[in-house]
């Protein structure tokens, strides 16, 4: 049975091994013996087996149809907000689960049916196809070069240099219009990155309670976030401003503050640092109250809040900017000006 099935062109003698030297010298133990003869599958010789395969394929296609019906049924019948408990997945959306699984079965069964069909019922006789060199034959190449040369000559491209040069000039300039059009994508940087919403006399507003902070509210070991007075979540530029103005407030015992300037800029041991990491601008606030270290959750830059916000680990390049604060005559904390240096990530013009 099997030997009759081998197509003639695949018999060993017609195969041509590469690499010249080791080719079929009679008796070369490593010579290419050519394609091995085709061996029949069970389905090729046993019609019962082939029938079984056919039934499996048809069953898979039928299952797919049923799954599609199931998909439509779930779409129509399962409410979008229904939650079910499926062990071990958890409390999940019934609709997502049923739609997903029926769709998966519908698709997978089509694929599995087709592949099973191909593997068991379609011919698995391996066929060899000749390859041809990708590079053109020399005469083709000669013809192309000759044609090109003729074309170039007819265009007089090489001879009339004025045309050539002005054309290059025009083609080189025209994309500039496109570049120009990009100008209005945004404003020029100016000093935007240097300024924040903080200014002298603005009170520190607690972001949890939206009330101005008093020094006695803040205990040693606590952590509070503040924004400048007058800023509201509803403001159209809130996002842009909070991205620079976000403030982190902690209280240290004055004797624990190692940096003299930090102590000068604090009020009763209350220090206010920018919440924006000087690395790439994540809001940094993983404050360890015993070590006074603050860690950035994005790239683990670690700053020492008891030592002028100095970088002690990680990729940040400079200390966290501190906001100079005082207690005003009404007993609230207020800023004594904007940050002395740009907050957030460093940039070329920062200096």
């Amino acid at each position, binding site marked *: 049975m099997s030997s009759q099935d081998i197509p003639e062109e695949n018999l060993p003698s017609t195969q041509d091994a590469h690499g010249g030297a080791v080719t079929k010298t009679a008796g070369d133990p490593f010579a290419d013996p050519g394609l091995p003869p085709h*061996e*029949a*599958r*069970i*389905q*090729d*010789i*046993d019609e019962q087996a082939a029938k079984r395969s056919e039934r499996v394929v048809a069953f898979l296609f039928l299952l797919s149809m049923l799954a599609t019906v199931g998909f439509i049924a779930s779409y129509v019948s399962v409410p979008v907000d229904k*939650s079910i408990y499926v062990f071990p*997945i*958890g*409390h*999940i*959306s019934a609709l*997502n*689960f049923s739609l*997903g699984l029926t769709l998966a079965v519908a698709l997978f069964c089509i694929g599995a049916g087709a*592949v099973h069909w191909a*593997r*068991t019922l379609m011919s*698995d006789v391996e066929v060899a196809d000749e390859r041809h060199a990708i590079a053109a034959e020399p005469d083709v190449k000669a013809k192309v070069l000759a044609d090109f040369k003729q074309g170039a000559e007819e265009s007089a491209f090489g001879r009339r240099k004025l045309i050539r040069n002005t054309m290059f000039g025009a083609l080189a300039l025209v994309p500039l219009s496109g570049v120009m059009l990009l100008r209005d994508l945004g404003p020029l940087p100016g000093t935007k990155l240097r300024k924040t919403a903080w200014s002298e006399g603005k009170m520190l507003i*607690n*972001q*949890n*309670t939206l009330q101005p*902070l008093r020094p*006695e*509210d*803040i*205990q040693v*070991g*606590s*952590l*509070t*976030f503040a924004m400048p007075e007058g800023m509201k979540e509803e403001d159209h530029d809130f996002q842009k401003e909070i991205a620079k103005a976000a403030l982190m407030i*902690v209280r240290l015992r004055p004797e624990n503050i190692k940096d003299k300037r930090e102590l000068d800029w604090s009020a009763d041991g209350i220090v206010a640092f920018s919440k924006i990491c000087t690395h790439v601008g994540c*809001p*940094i*606030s*993983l*404050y*360890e*109250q*015993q*070590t006074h*270290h603050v*860690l950035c*959750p994005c790239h*683990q830059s*670690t700053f020492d809040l008891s030592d002028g916000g100095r970088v002690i*680990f990680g990729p940040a390049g400079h200390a966290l900017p501190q906001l100079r604060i005082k207690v005003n005559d009404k007993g609230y904390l207020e800023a004594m000006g904007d940050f002395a240096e740009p907050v957030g990530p460093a940039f070329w013009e920062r200096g």
Partner: protein
Amino acid sequence: MKKLSARRRHPLAAVVVLLFALAVTGGLYAAFAPADTAKADGTAQSLAIEEGKKLYSVGCASCHGTGGQGTSDGPSLVGVGAAAVDFQVRTGRMPLQQQGAQAPRKKAIYSQAQTDQIAAYIASLGAGPSVPTKDQYSPDGADIAKGGELFRTNCAQCHNFTGKGGALSNGKYAPDLTDVNPKHIYEAMQTGPQNMPSFPDTTMSEKNKKDIIAYLDTVNSSKSESPGGLELGGLGPVSEGLFAWIFGLGALIAVAIWVAAHTAKAKKS
């Protein structure tokens, strides 16, 4: 090198390599395991004070000093309050099993009654936050959405979006908050255990704390919903990526192997 190379096929070679690899792994672990730089804290009523003092001198005094004044092994407990004691002891953090980067959560050793006695004793040493009452920490009637926003502002930076926990420096960590008793969450916010900063009522109101507890109760408890399916730890893209590689690509490769494999041949038996 030659000599080494010649012994490559020695039957014991694999054993030697394995032992070597284990030694290196163990050595590296020992070298990189978080250094022991731990500190812990704890805190303090009237008839119970006497009983509490007894318990204290047996279980706590060795680190925190006989009068709660603190030693080099443990901080002073004067003024930490009953809430801190209840938190530390009832979550099993105290008494500490061994010094480490941070006291881990474990099974509580003291009963609630014993804990209350110790707390009463500690509270007698100096004024501090008292144990919250049920209507303070119960999530009923709180604003879940506001709690979510507060959580993202104050807590998520260490505890992750839904309180799955995260790393801090040098082996310290912010623990997973899944199914933590609301009372303990309230106490933790109020007292700031270990390296966690405190969020006293003056900067985070009682209402704020209730909202946060209600949010956590909704998104991070064993009955929380995860509409999309498996939560994959709630850790974000890292676990999603691992899942895509292992199960997604893994399943696809398994299927590809089936598609491309040669069908079994009918071997003459």
